[in-house]
């Protein structure tokens, strides 16, 4: 048996046994939905329906309804895309990288974080489809035989790389998440008393019985998937950053982009996981599984990645000066002191200053403070992408082309669409699927629960 040092705080509190884990998590699925859940789902559906309305008009009329102009050709669409993809990095990071690093605290949060990843990547994908304008021709981005002779896609283009990266990331994350769900779905199947849920969860659980041979293969599969997902998750945001970095626009054409984007993605992803988990924890009474210890660890990751992002901002500025390229220098001076300085300083405050508060353990372990900072971080990360995209574009080389970007109702509505979609999916997930990976939590109970901590002490 593995003995955990008494210095390590327990990861499962409240004297829970494996049977309690099953009961506590399955209770949410088997019981009737609460009023609070219906209320939350209604709000999400309202947001979604408003979004579907504006999106329908965007498709019918074309993206001319957005506030884009000849100078600012990318604005909220790509900002939202990068923002959502960034958020979508936390899930796979938690389940893959933390699995390879053998961090046991991942077990309580990986399921919900992975679900969030999938929904966030779907939201990101929706902006890619939207910004194409003629969405029905989206398959032109794929190397499919066509009647133009076949005229193939340009594999030298980062936009084509993006198509491959995002779709691979989405499908591999989906598989990773689902493989993790199978044993838990079998648990729900065995507990189901009514025939319809039993049949549905029975089909979803793929006839899992948990035999030693299956577990042995299952563990191999999880480990290899984690090993494959780790470089994948890093490659995805690297490739997203190539969309900018391989161009010749001052402010975009920098080699620091890949690591800086990846750090920012982890930063915003963890913040979103915290926002969602703190709400889920309170509504489903999961305080014994998602403890202050988990929140503390996640806040430390936010602090670290937030600091990396802060250093990247400063480095960019320094390199702009050091390069001696006056266009590059102007792009950065314009960011900080030009017409969009308010966006720049919002970004700086939210992303660089707010996570520094997490140096204090009192703030890291304060739920209200964590919740507020997690939202501030995501506001900051949205502005980061907005600043990078719009401020680099809006003052073109020729001053007669200089322009500002003003969002329209459809810019806002299409953004609201993604929120509606994201939260609708998340609430449905939270009701019908286990929000905590039961099998993995049970596996750490013997070594990392409160009971053990007490035994070791005495």
């Amino acid at each position, binding site marked *: 048996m593995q003995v955990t040092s008494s210095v390590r705080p327990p990861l499962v509190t409240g004297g829970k046994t494996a049977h309690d884990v*099953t009961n506590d998590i399955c209770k949410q699925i088997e019981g009737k939905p609460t009023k609070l859940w219906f209320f939350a789902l209604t709000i999400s559906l309202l947001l979604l329906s408003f979004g579907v309305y504006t999106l329908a008009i965007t498709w019918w009329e074309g993206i001319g309804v957005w506030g884009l102009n000849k100078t600012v050709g990318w604005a909220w669409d790509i900002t939202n895309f990068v923002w959502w993809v960034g958020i979508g990095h936390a899930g796979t990071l938690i389940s893959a990288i933390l699995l390879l690093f053998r961090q046991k605290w991942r077990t309580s949060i990986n399921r919900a974080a992975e679900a969030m990843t999938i929904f966030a990547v779907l939201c990101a994908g929706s902006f890619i489809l939207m910004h194409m304008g003629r969405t029905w021709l989206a398959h032109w981005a794929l190397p499919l035989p066509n009647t133009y002779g076949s005229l193939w896609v340009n594999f030298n283009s980062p936009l084509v790389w993006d198509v*491959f990266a995002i779709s691979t990331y989405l499908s591999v994350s989906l598989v990773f998440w689902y*493989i993790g769900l199978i044993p838990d779905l079998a648990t729900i199947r065995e507990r189901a008393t009514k025939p319809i849920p039993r049949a549905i969860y029975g089909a979803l659980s793929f006839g899992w*019985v948990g*035999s030693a041979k299956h*577990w042995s293969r299952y563990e*191999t599969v999880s480990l290899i998937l984690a090993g494959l997902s780790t*470089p994948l998750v890093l490659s995805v945001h690297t490739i997203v950053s190539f969309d900018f970095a391989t161009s010749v626009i001052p402010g975009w054409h920098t080699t620091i982009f890949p690591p800086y984007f990846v750090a920012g993605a982890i930063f915003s992803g963890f913040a979103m996981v915290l926002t969602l988990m703190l709400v889920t924890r309170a509504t489903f009474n999961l305080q014994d599984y998602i403890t202050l210890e988990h929140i503390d660890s996640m806040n430390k990751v936010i602090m670290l990645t937030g600091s990396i992002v802060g250093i990247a901002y400063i480095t960019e500025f320094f390199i702009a000066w050091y390069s001696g390229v006056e266009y590059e220098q102007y792009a950065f001076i314009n960011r900080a002191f030009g017409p969009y300085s308010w966006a720049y300083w919002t970004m700086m405050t939210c992303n660089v200053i707010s996570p520094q508060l997490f140096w204090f353990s009192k703030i890291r372990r304060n739920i209200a403070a964590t919740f507020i900072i997690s939202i501030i971080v995501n506001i900051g990360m949205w502005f980061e992408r907005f600043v990078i995209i719009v401020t680099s574009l809006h003052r073109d080389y020729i001053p007669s082309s200089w322009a500002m970007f003003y969002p329209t109702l459809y810019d806002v509505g299409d953004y609201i669409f993604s929120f509606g979609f994201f939260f609708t999916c998340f609430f449905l997930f939270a009701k019908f699927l286990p929000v905590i990976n039961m099998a993995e939590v049970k596996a750490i109970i013997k070594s990392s629960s409160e009971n053990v901590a007490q035994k070791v002490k005495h």
Partner: protein
Amino acid sequence: MAKIQGDFLVGVFDDDDVIMHAIPEIREKGIKIFEVYSPYPIHGVDDVLGIKRSRLTKAAFMFGLTGTILALTMQFWMLGFDWPMNIGGKAHTPFPTFVPVTFELTVLLASFGMVGTFLVVSDLKPYGKPVVFDPRSTDDKFILVVELQKNKMSADEISAVLKQQGAIEVNLKTIA
């Protein structure tokens, strides 16, 4: 996969360490263990049960290699031979710009190929009825199953051994 049929003795354990120590003792008595079921993986159980290391890693590698070759062939053929395009006067087939797509397809094929193989070899599918010896094996109990037809000892003798090794209950289950 062979159909599960016959009379089985189902030993229920409530601790993974107990069942881990019990398995070699039971095997030493000459009892053939049919299968062990658990709610989460018991580390080291594959060694005591004599389960060979999974070859899925090799499958994953082969699928990944297929992805790499497929991606490189596709890109070189499309842009180098089928329709070479002049893009800014650059080389038709620059290898470095083919790396991202090659990497993504490698990961995609490796993951899907490995998971598909896993589902097929483990006979996991959304239809068909799984044989569950004890529903508690997906909750918090560890189940050790012995097939009576494959063992020379009588049911009572095996049952006594299982109980002696820490099983909290032993049930007889007939599967038609």
